């Protein structure tokens, strides 16, 4: 406001080091516009320069400060901004600038625990803020950057296999090759029809994104269909097997986020939908974990560090039979509460714990032996 009246005394510009070479991603600004910003990973240093171009001959200030902030904003409540990350550096002591200058800054080994996210009701953003403190109106400049959290799961983890049905009407068995997919992955699976007494018109796989913000009575939930993918046309008969192959790379997906800073979760479900000739819809949701796979370069380093023998690059699709006691359940009636939601809750807890553990060492890998998430899911399933 004051700037508008009197005009700024100087232009501020933030330039992040190596931003020309870095991978870029879109940041959704408050204005609704998208801006391509560089991508950082957890633990990486964030460094850059601040260019101050004076518009007057001199500028008096009470100090120049640079901050690295991580912020969760709920759209419903602008006031409740939550800073989960805040680091600051003093760039200049109070004084008078007589000429334009360039100030360098660096935040070393910044812990960036969460993935940048721009959702329906919530956003999580990282940015650098430069503040030139002045007597009347401070000069402030913000520069967003993106954070990608990386994860790695062994491909041998096993898939999802389940038999579902409506008694004497429809029994199918479906199988997804994995329960955790990286964002450029392809979901490979198949549907086996054990009994078909309804006239199926077509069948599709949907990718659903469920965003849950807040806790308790104030929580807000939003579900969005990210992808609709027809996998079958027409009515199959008993014994048919329908293949599923769904490439994820083309859709706007984020990694699964569970209980981010106890404020929100973003979870993904594969929804298998059958539509019969009378337009009745039968569906079965199954949560899958999405993660951002370490790019090749990173992965190689990580492997060397961990001396792991198995390589995610060459791993074959899993044909290992999942433990039927917890993956495989069968319900003879429909209309009960969504099991996906129930199991999702427990899984979120477990995965959240995992994420927290692994955040420290910059590696989000889950070793095959460390499968406490599955055991807790197992317990949940048995309860059903």
């Amino acid at each position, binding site marked *: 406001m004051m700037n508008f009246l009197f005009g700024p005394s100087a232009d501020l510009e933030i330039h992040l080091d190596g931003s020309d070479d870095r991978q870029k991603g879109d940041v959704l600004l408050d204005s609704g516009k998208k801006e391509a910003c560089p991508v950082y990973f957890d633990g990486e240093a964030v460094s850059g320069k601040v260019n101050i171009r004076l518009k007057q001959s001199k500028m008096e200030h009470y100090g120049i400060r640079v901050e690295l902030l991580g912020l969760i904003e709920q759209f419903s409540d602008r006031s409740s901004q939550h800073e989960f990350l805040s680091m600051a550096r003093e760039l200049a002591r109070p004084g008078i600038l007589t000429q334009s200058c360039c100030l360098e800054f660096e935040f070393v080994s910044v812990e960036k625990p969460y993935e940048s996210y721009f959702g329906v009701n919530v956003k999580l953003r990282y940015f650098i803020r430069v503040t030139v403190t002045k007597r009347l109106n401070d000069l402030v400049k913000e520069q967003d950057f993106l954070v990608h959290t990386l994860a790695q799961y062994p491909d041998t983890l096993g898939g999802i296999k389940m038999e*579902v*049905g*409506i008694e004497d009407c*429809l029994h199918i068995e479906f199988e997804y090759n994995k329960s955790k997919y990286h964002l450029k992955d392809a979901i490979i699976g198949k549907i086996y029809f054990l009994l078909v007494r309804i006239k*199926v018109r*077509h069948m599709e796989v949907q990718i659903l994104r469920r965003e849950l913000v807040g806790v308790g009575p104030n929580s807000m939930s939003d579900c969005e269909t990210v*992808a*609709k*993918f*027809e*996998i*079958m*046309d*027409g*009515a*199959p*008969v008993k014994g*048919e*097997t*329908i*293949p599923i*192959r769904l*490439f994820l*790379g*083309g859709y706007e997906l984020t990694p699964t986020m569970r209980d981010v800073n106890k404020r929100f979760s973003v979870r993904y479900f594969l929804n298998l939908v*059958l*539509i019969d000739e*009378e*337009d*009745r*819809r*039968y*569906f*079965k949701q199954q949560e899958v974990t999405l993660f951002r796979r370490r790019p090749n370069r990173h992965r190689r380093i990580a492997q060397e560090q961990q001396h792991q023998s198995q390589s995610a690059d060459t791993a074959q699709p899993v044909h290992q039979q999942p433990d039927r006691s917890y993956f495989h359940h069968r*319900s003879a*009636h*429909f*209309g*009960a509460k*969504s*099991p996906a939601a129930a199991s999702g809750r427990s899984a979120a807890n477990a995965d959240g714990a995992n994420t927290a553990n692994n955040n420290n060492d910059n590696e989000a890998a889950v070793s095959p032996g460390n499968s406490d998430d599955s055991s807790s899911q197992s317990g949940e399933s048995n309860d059903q």
Partner: protein
Amino acid sequence: LFWQTRSQDMSGPVTEDQEKLLDEALSVVKLQAFQMKRCLDKAKLMDALKHASNMLGELRTSLLSPKSYYELYMLITDEMRHLELYLLDEFQKGRRVQDLYELVQYAGNIIPRLYLLITVGVVYIKCSEISRKDILKDLVEMCRGVQHPLRGLFLRNYLLQCTKNVLPDCVEEEQEDSGSVSDSIDFVLLNFSEMNKLWVRMQHQGHTRERDRREQERRELKLLVGTNLVRLSQLDTIDVQRYRSVVLPAVLEQVVNCKDALSQDYVMECIIQVFPDEYHLATLQDFLQACAELNPAVPVKNILISLINRLSAFATRDGSNGIPSDIPLFDFFSEQIAKIIENKPDLSPEDLVSLQAALTGLALGVYKDREDYVDKVLETTNSGLDKLGRLDSPTKKSVSAYLLQNMLNNGTLVPSSEQVEQLLDLVRCLVADPGADAAAAAAAATATNSLGGDPGDGSANGAGPDSEADNEDLAEEQSLLGRVVHLFSTGPDLLDEQFGVLKTARRILATGGGRRVKYTLPPVVYQAYQLAIRFHNRQDSDDKWRKKCRKIFEFCHSTVCGLAKCELPNLALRLFVDGALVVDKIPFDQHDTVAYEFLSQAFSLYEEEISDSKRMTCFAAENHEPLRSQTVHAASKLLRKPDQSRAVAACAHLFWSGRPRELQGAEMRDLKKVGECLKRAGRLASQCMDAGLQAQLYTELVNYYLYFVLQSAGSNLDVSQLSSTAGQLLAKIREILSGLEPSADSEHIHKHFEATVEFARSQSASGDATIAGLLAQLEL
């Protein structure tokens, strides 16, 4: 566990005019195709793909009939060629679009997605064969997603068309990476079985009352399924070995398991047509085995007949080596046909018989020198037709009649007694009455010589309400059977066996009763006469021929006697007389006594049974005195006076034109006896009570007199006696006629008389003095 919701939108398919729907779809396609091509021209591949996808989206419709859908499909696939050519061009120039194969798979709807995938996949293959094997496998697997029969069939047809020239066609050792012929086989076989399943499934959709329409629609689509087999047949590397071990078993398994009659019928026929004959020969057993397992509704006979015809044609084609001797073609067919009959208890008799008929055709066509094959066919047919016992009698009869007709058409000879027995057993419903079976058989067993028919049979049956139609049918069937008897032939040399055949035939046919033997036994007898003549012709090579001839005539004699006992005197008479004629020509020992016996039998028959004097003329050619007198005697013993009169008058000819052996062929012209006969006839005529009839007889007698008088002209015979008698007759006639009341009869007699007189006048006017003199005595 499924959650179920019902969407608000209930718009179902609206039945609209097909033409309108098709037009709409076509115009969308044309627009999208146009935009696609424009984008390709500008090298905007992504946009072009989007338009292609929109265009292909029209194939998602459920509203079009198969015919309209086909039209739409043709237009769209035609436009898709542009995309394919563009991509090929780009790829070959090295401008390969990264991950295009993955890219097209983002299409949300499966139909456009798979069409695009196939198109791109084939471009990949055409540009580099490295991944050919994997792409083919992937494409055919992914197509499983389309389970809608019509759309699935066309999609898979597109797959088949696009991959037409890129299927690996080499043996395994040559190429490992780009795939070998076994990959092609797997590919086509999988596509085939999936298409067949979809095709079969069409039948079970929708309302049952539209069954016929659906069947019609399915017929229109059958070529799509068959193309798979055509494609297999075009792979050069599929040799007999591979065909037998891989291709055929898979195809047959699919066909048998689908249990659908229409599919089985078509695919089996298709196999026969598209693969080479050598392959069929090598896999005959498997193929026929499968035939035995088909749905009972499948007209297996058509399939087999088609195969038999093809193989027959192959065997007799120019340049072919015939059926290899190590393949017992006939045995295969006959065994398998027997199995089919066994496995299909409800096989219709028509099918059964036409199968056997085809087999007979094969035996006759390919194995000309193996007559025993025909025996085999008859044997199998026999056992198969045992089941006909369950059939109602009209069906049985028509089946048997069909069989016989077929034999006649093919000229199938029955060369042994056993076979005659089998054949007649087979068609026993024609040979004898079903009810009379046991009794007749028993009768036949006890008295072979007396034909065990039931004499009352004919009249009893004639009392039925539809007896006339029955009799007509019977006559038709029995003449057929009679004609078949002529096929009972052992060939030109086996005369003794031939006699055995005839004996068997007689024994069985005799059980038929009077209504039947009338038609069936005469051919046997004539065959026997024929045989006797043949024995005679071979007298040089067979010194026992006399004895054999005698045996034959004895056989004929007993047969004809049997006929006579069945109240068939006319027939028996004729057979005896004809037999006598044959005997006359064959000079075996005592042939005169045999002939005498035949004729005397004829006479006794005549005496007992025949009232028609016109038969008398039959005897005119005979040559024995006793016979002549016997004839006269017989004639005079006729029941009715007018008949007696006429018969005796006719006997006059015997004494005129008979040619006894002593006169060396000259006519005997015994005028005295002639005169006696005529006189006697006159006396008999005078005993008639009816004046009109009397006049008629007298007029006829005058004609006789005139005949003999004219015949004697120029000879030294004295005919005055005759003329005077004739004159007296004329006077009598005039007298009677004058007293006769006018009626149609008397009118007739008048005319006859006038014509006679007129004839006499014309003869006398012709100038012959003797005749004129004679006629003068006739008091004209």
